[in-house]
Every structure is written in structure tokens, then in C-alpha cells.
């Protein structure tokens, strides 16, 4: 309580710098995970498209 009496009252309700810091790290992570994994996702999509096209071709030919 001594500390509370001496310390100046904070103006904000919340430590917004900590909040923005965490949000910033999450945003960097989101962009980088997208950047690092998009090639794998695209490759998987093309593989599915290719296999389904071949299957359709075999069925309808």
C-alpha cells in the first residue's frame, strides 16, 4: 500500500503498449506463417485438382 500511495496514478485503464506488442507479434506471425506455408497449400491444391482431373478423364474417356 505504501507503493500505491507514492506512485502516480496511471492515466490509462490498460497497458496498451503490452497489448499492441502482443498484437504486433501475432500479426507478424500471421503474415510469416502465410508466407512460409502458402507454397505447401498451393501444391496440395494443385495435386488434388490434377488427380481429380485425371480420374474424371479416365471415367469419361
Amino acid at each position, binding site marked *: 500500500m505504501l507503493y500505491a500511495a507514492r506512485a502516480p496514478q496511471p492515466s490509462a485503464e490498460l*497497458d496498451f503498449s503490452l497489448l499492441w506488442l502482443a498484437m*504486433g507479434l501475432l500479426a507478424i506471425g500471421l*503474415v510469416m506463417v502465410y508466407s512460409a506455408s502458402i507454397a505447401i497449400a498451393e501444391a496440395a491444391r494443385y495435386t488434388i485438382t490434377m488427380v481429380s482431373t485425371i480420374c474424371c478423364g479416365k471415367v469419361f474417356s
Partner: protein
Amino acid sequence: MGIGAGVAAFRVPMRVWQQAAPYLFLVGLLLLVVVLIPHLGREVNGSRRWIPLGFANLQPSELMKFLAVLYAADYTTRKAAFMYDFRKGFLPMAAVMLVVGALLLREPDFGAFVVIISIAMGILFLGGLNWKVFAALVVVLLVGFVLLILTSPYRLQRVLGFMDPFADPYGKGYQLSHALIAFGRGEWLGLGLGGSIEKLFYLPEAHTDFLLAVIAEEFGFIGVAVVIALFGWLIVKAFLIGHRAAQLERNFCALVAQGIGIWIGVQALINMGVNVGLLPTKGLTLPFLSFGGSGIIANCLAVAILLRIDWEHRQMMRGKTF
């Protein structure tokens, strides 16, 4: 989901977190047992770490890091009078951590084990554990880790691979050699967002364990320095909040805040060490950044708790009591 979990966690008073800590820890232990049960736990690349929930996979070891912080802080606060007593202060916590360690090593998840042990030891030390016991514990743990590495062929392979990755660049040193190539290619300013070549099937786990290598390749030394600075700032913030809690004689809150600082710091340090070849490959993600739902949720919970502790301090300074 992470932000939602964080908002929910922020609304819970720290008093309630303290009361719930032992029960939450028991739930965490139960999940660590469940993940080992065949057909319930999901195995990927030889590790059984995930519980499929249908819409997502839960990784109990990630949540356990958060629960270990709460439990260790509550334990240290309750046993504050016995912190100089090896039998009453240290041994019960060591027994609990041995159980957690045994379950984690059964998965196996050596990285999570190292992080959780670091959290528990750090909180015990900050809580006033006798320094002689602490020093002896460090020696015992170091010997234990060396034995664990020597008795497991896959861990030994990882250690040998990290010492000279280019000796076997297509085998043991494959991941690390490509991570180092990514760092080298990035130079000072990087190749720009999307410019990484290593992420195109050369570097395995580019979106999880080796995300920093992709950041290094695309944003260079400057990008990595910014990431390190952000983590440094977060850890300093956690310790400052903990320091203020200690001044207000809120020991549980102080240890929780400092425990979160230790957790984020140790995990980020190990991940960065692995990426630059200073530490053997561990399978640890970079907090907040790497892919992994359970990890992100646990990280969001940690920040929400930090914000809650700080918010309660601000309210106390306005005369409110908790």
C-alpha cells in the same frame, strides 16, 4: 480463438486463477495422459502430441506450460515458509515435475519438458528457494539432460547433426544447413516478403520451428533484430509487472508475471538458438509467431494474465481492492 481465450482469461480475477491453479494443473496432467492413449492421441512424425477434437487438434504440452506457471506460482506462494527446507519446500515440487517430465518424454516432447522445468525452477528460485539447492538442482538437471541425450538415438543424432550440419547436409544436418543458408541469403535487409527460396520445400517445418529462418531470408538481419527486440520488450514488461506486484506484496501475481517472462524468454531463446545452429533441434515453436493453434492460445492466455495483473494494479492505485 486465441484472442477470444485471452479476452475470457482477462475477465477472471487473479484470486480465482490462484484458487483454480492446482485443479487446472490436474486437468493438464490428465490431458498429458490422454494424449498417450492409442487412438485418442494423434501421432505425427513419430511424436504423439495431439488430441484430435474434430475441428482442431489440441496439444496438451503447450497448455501445460501456461498451467505450470500458475501451479508453480501458487505452490511457491503457499510454501513460502518452507523454501529453505529441501524436504518440505523442494521435494514435492520436484516429484510433480518428474511426473510431468515422464509424461512429456513418453510423447516424446523434450522441448516442452525443458521449458516447463525452466519455468518451475525459475519460479522456485524467484520465490526464495535456497541457492545451494538451486545450484545442486542445476547440476543434476544438466547431468540428466546429457544422459537423456546419450540414451536416445534420435536425440543423439540431432545433437551430432547440429555440431556440424554441413558434414551430412542431406541427412542429419539437412534442416540446420538449410536454415543457415536462409540466414546467409537474407544478408542485412533480406530478399523481401515472399522472396524466400528455402521455404519452397527445401526447409522442412518452415512455418513452425524454422519460421525465424524464413524471416531472416525475407527481412534479413534487420527483421530478425526487430523480432528479438519485440521479444526482449515483452519479457522486460513481464518482469516489470512482476516487480510491481512484488512491491504491492501480491506474491502469486509477481511469480506468475515473472514465470510468464521466463517461459516466453526461454522458449524464444531456444527456438532462435536452434535456428542459428547454437542449440540442437528441439521441436519448439517461436511464441506468438509460429504455426500451432494450442501454442498461440497458450501465448494469448499468458498475455491476458499479464494485462489482468497490470489492470488490477492500476485499479488498486485508484483505491480498489482485490
